[in-house]
């Protein structure tokens, strides 16, 4: 793995939580790297620390110890405002529960990040139309999220994550709330978009379908990376 191509790098990442007075070691010294343009997955059983690791990588959470570099920048040292701007410009999120803004239409949800970036109205509209076509939702731009099916909502989330052309897409269990047919369709679509755009995709999942498509799989157990062959779920 050449250093030039590395887009995500963590070093001795640690994070503990306190739940009902009990300390939970969610992430216990993780070192790993992801290359630019990869379609990768962090896998493991529930509670193994996948989401926590993804949150630390994206800067949504701060590590107790260790460092995170994204695109060569040390994000674990950034201030709140710097981190907000960095996330806005470099990371796209796909959530398990879609997390669309209910009061905004499909178009407004998708253009939200571009608005924060200060991109002009015409440019925004063109990009929304283009990405809606790519995710197969053309003509639905004026609908509200509640007027869409789960699969359609997840497509809007994918469109929202990709439309501002971030370097990294972080997807937390994106197929968990979908039936297997819709899940497969969406994964194929994301794999296709990964090929086409060269954006780096990193999933947290225990979905076998994701692993089948992933070029790199990081297997977690009890907050640590383990050999993937040793995990039953794999």
């Amino acid at each position: 793995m050449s250093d030039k191509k590395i887009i995500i790098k963590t070093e001795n990442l640690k994070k503990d939580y306190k739940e009902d007075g009990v300390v939970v070691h969610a992430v216990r010294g993780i070192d790993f790297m992801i290359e630019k343009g990869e379609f990768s997955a962090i896998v493991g059983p529930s509670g193994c620390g996948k989401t926590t690791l993804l949150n630390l990588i994206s800067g949504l959470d701060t590590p107790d110890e260790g460092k995170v570099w994204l695109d060569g920048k040390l994000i674990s040292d950034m201030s709140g405002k710097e981190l907000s701007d960095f996330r806005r410009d470099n990371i796209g999120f796909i959530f398990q529960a879609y997390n669309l803004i209910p009061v905004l239409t499909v178009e407004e949800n998708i253009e939200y990040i571009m608005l924060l970036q200060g991109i002009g109205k015409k440019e925004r509209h063109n990009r929304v139309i283009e990405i809606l076509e790519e995710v197969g939702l053309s003509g639905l731009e004026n609908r509200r999220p509640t007027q869409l099916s789960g699969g359609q909502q997840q497509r809007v989330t994918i469109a929202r994550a990709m439309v501002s052309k971030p370097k990294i897409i972080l997807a937390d269990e994106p197929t968990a709330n979908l039936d297997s047919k819709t899940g497969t369709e969406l994964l194929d679509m994301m794999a296709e978009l990964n090929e086409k755009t060269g954006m780096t995709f990193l999933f947290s999942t225990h979905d076998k379908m994701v692993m089948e498509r992933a070029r790199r799989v990081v297997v977690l157990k009890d907050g640590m990376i383990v050999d993937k062959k040793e995990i039953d779920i794999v």
Partner: protein
Amino acid sequence: MLFLKMAFRNIFRQKRRTFFTALTMIGGFALACISIGWADGSYNNIIGMFTRGWLGHIQIHYKDYLDKPSIYKTIDNYNEIGKKIMEIKGVKSWTARVYSAGLASFKDKTSGVSIIGIDPEKEDKTTDFHKKIINGDYFKAGVKNQVLIGKGLAKIIKAKAGDKIILVSQAADGSMANDIFTVSGIVSTDDDLFDRTSFYMKLDDAREFLVLGNKVHEIAVTVDKLKEVKKIDKKISLVLKNTDLSVASWQEFAKDFYKAMKADKGGMWISLFVIILVVAVGVLNTILMSVLERIREYGVLKALGTRPGDIILLVLYEANIIAVFSIFIGAIIGFAVNYYLSLHGIHLSQSFTYGGMKFSEIMTEINLRSFIIPGITVLLTTVIVGFFPALKAAKTDPAKSLRFH
């Protein structure tokens, strides 16, 4: 613009809650608007009645006459001064008066009286004096030695219109002044104490009786607008700057009354504070509930790169849209109620006495401040109270909110 749009749509998500919040704000605004309109209306009405009833808005005397009244502390050339005063913009009218004390006798009854010499025509223009006559007639032109007496005095000496009264006093030249006067009418000023001694004579008769020549003791001035009293007071002082005369506005010569008015106005601010408190609690409750409900949404917004300041703005927009709408509706209600009460007033079943004057109805007033003060109050309260929930929303930890909500 996007945040404004989101805020606007958010307020319709919990229609019932928005409705009750708006109702609290509308109620608060309208109550404050009516209470200020009412306070201003009644105070201005009371001040108007108090000053226009007898005192006038501005008075001119020999320099220390008010502290130590004396028949010798007089104003010379009062007609010339009056003419100069009338040239000042905003002055409505003026009148001259003389004062002294004496003994009035009718048949076997005698009572101490306050002799008040008034210019029948000017006094009527200044204080609507003829309206105070409850029995008999006002002074007739060209008839000498007519008097009007207070209803209390009439009761004491058992005199009525047409009766002849003997008046004894000391003139300015030291001689004993005495003459017979015919009661033309009985006067009631609603100030019972004053009416028990008041003995009104024509100014010319009084000056002659008291041997005052062309001198008077007081010039009372009324102005068109109450709020211009101090400005006009200064202008009159400028006109009289090289004389021994002093000029005083009603706030100075009726200090006790003015202090009582100010204290009463303080009470108005207390009721305004209570209204603010009610609005504040309502607003805080609503915003806090809506923030707590949407904590996951704020987490998503932060994850997408929304800055904390923008989230504060979003929450405050939401509260302030409701506030602006409520102010608009509250203003319509406040205006309608104040307008109605400014025309018809509130008739009191039992009249009350203030500053020696009897009041049987309260009028409201429509003025700009009765809209501006509640408007600013509601908006400021909303911003201040809304800021803390907004800060909570802005401080949302995206990782936690996405995990637990």
